[in-house]
């Protein structure tokens, strides 16, 4: 499947702002897509599309904060940079509490926005890489037999083969064989790596 290009999405009802942001992003070598309203963006939004979102707070119809709420309901993880000419502290706090990546007041320097966009894109890249990694780990976990999974869970808790054998009521030799299969299927080079994989898919509380 062809990968979608990393894109900066811009949602602002002001034509002049949209155009100037598009030109600015282009000058920095970034691909952008613009929308004049929240509805227009949401109707075309594809969560698989990597990138970040530059979102105006005040727009007719659905506001930027309402759109952020809608994206949260959809489970979207795209980093959102709010821009506004009429920001205040309660508004900024609300946006950040709901997971905004940043909140920038107009007028801002071009470089200020570009720096934030770059940081947001980096975060999106990192997040997607982590997601792919945990997806691969989950696939490997799914390939384990029920007994191998039991052995894995106990080994990951730090139990020695002898203790695992005792817990499962099998011989130590059987545990060793299951453990070897687990290491092979999970593509883990060491116990530490195996534990790291388990923590990546189910971090401790």
């Amino acid at each position, binding site marked *: 499947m062809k990968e979608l290009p990393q894109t900066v999405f811009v949602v602002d009802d002001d034509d002049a702002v949209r155009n100037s942001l598009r030109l600015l992003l282009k000058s920095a070598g970034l691909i952008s897509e613009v929308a004049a309203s929240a509805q227009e963006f949401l109707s075309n939004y594809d969560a698989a599309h990597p990138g970040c979102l530059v979102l105006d707070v005040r727009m007719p119809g659905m506001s930027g904060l309402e759109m952020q709420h809608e994206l949260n309901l959809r489970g979207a993880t795209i980093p959102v940079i709010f821009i506004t000419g009429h920001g*205040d*502290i309660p508004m*900024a706090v609300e946006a*950040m*509490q709901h997971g905004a990546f940043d909140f920038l*007041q107009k007028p801002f320097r071009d470089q200020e926005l570009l720096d934030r966009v770059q940081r947001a894109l980096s975060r999106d890249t990192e997040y997607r890489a982590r997601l792919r990694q945990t997806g691969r780990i989950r696939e490997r976990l799914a390939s384990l037999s029920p007994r191998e999974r039991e052995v894995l869970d106990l080994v990951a808790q730090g139990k020695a083969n002898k203790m695992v054998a005792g817990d499962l009521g099998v011989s130590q030799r059987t545990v060793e064989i299951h453990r070897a299969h687990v290491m092979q299927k999970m593509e883990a080079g060491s116990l530490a790596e195996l534990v790291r994989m388990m923590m990546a898919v189910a971090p401790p509380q």
Partner: protein
Amino acid sequence: MMRSHDSGGSADKQSDTERVRTIIVAGQASERTREVLRALRGFTNVIWPTSLEAALAQAGSGNAGCLVIADDLREEPIDEFLQEARELQRNLPIFVITDPDDVAEAVSAMRHGATAVIEIPPSYAVLCEEVSRAMQ
């Protein structure tokens, strides 16, 4: 140095939980800190550590209910202090008091782990509501 703040005789407003856990107001002996302490005068369990070490020690204790950063305790942005407090107590509600309309500082505080930011002059109602909610 650490001082207990006078209750102002409104202890009956507090729940049992509020009586046990501590509201830590971190700040210098500034007018802003005094404003915050006045706003929280209805709570009996307010302490006011005036050194960074004491504030962090209190924030890291199991008895901490919430932390209100009224002022920085050193000549640096609040962000580092916030990060240190957050590392000590991951789930501790932390409120930062900022200058009015300083959106950039508010955003920075939120990015560094503040639960909420309240601008000065602090609205007594907002501050008390946030603190009460945090103590529940």
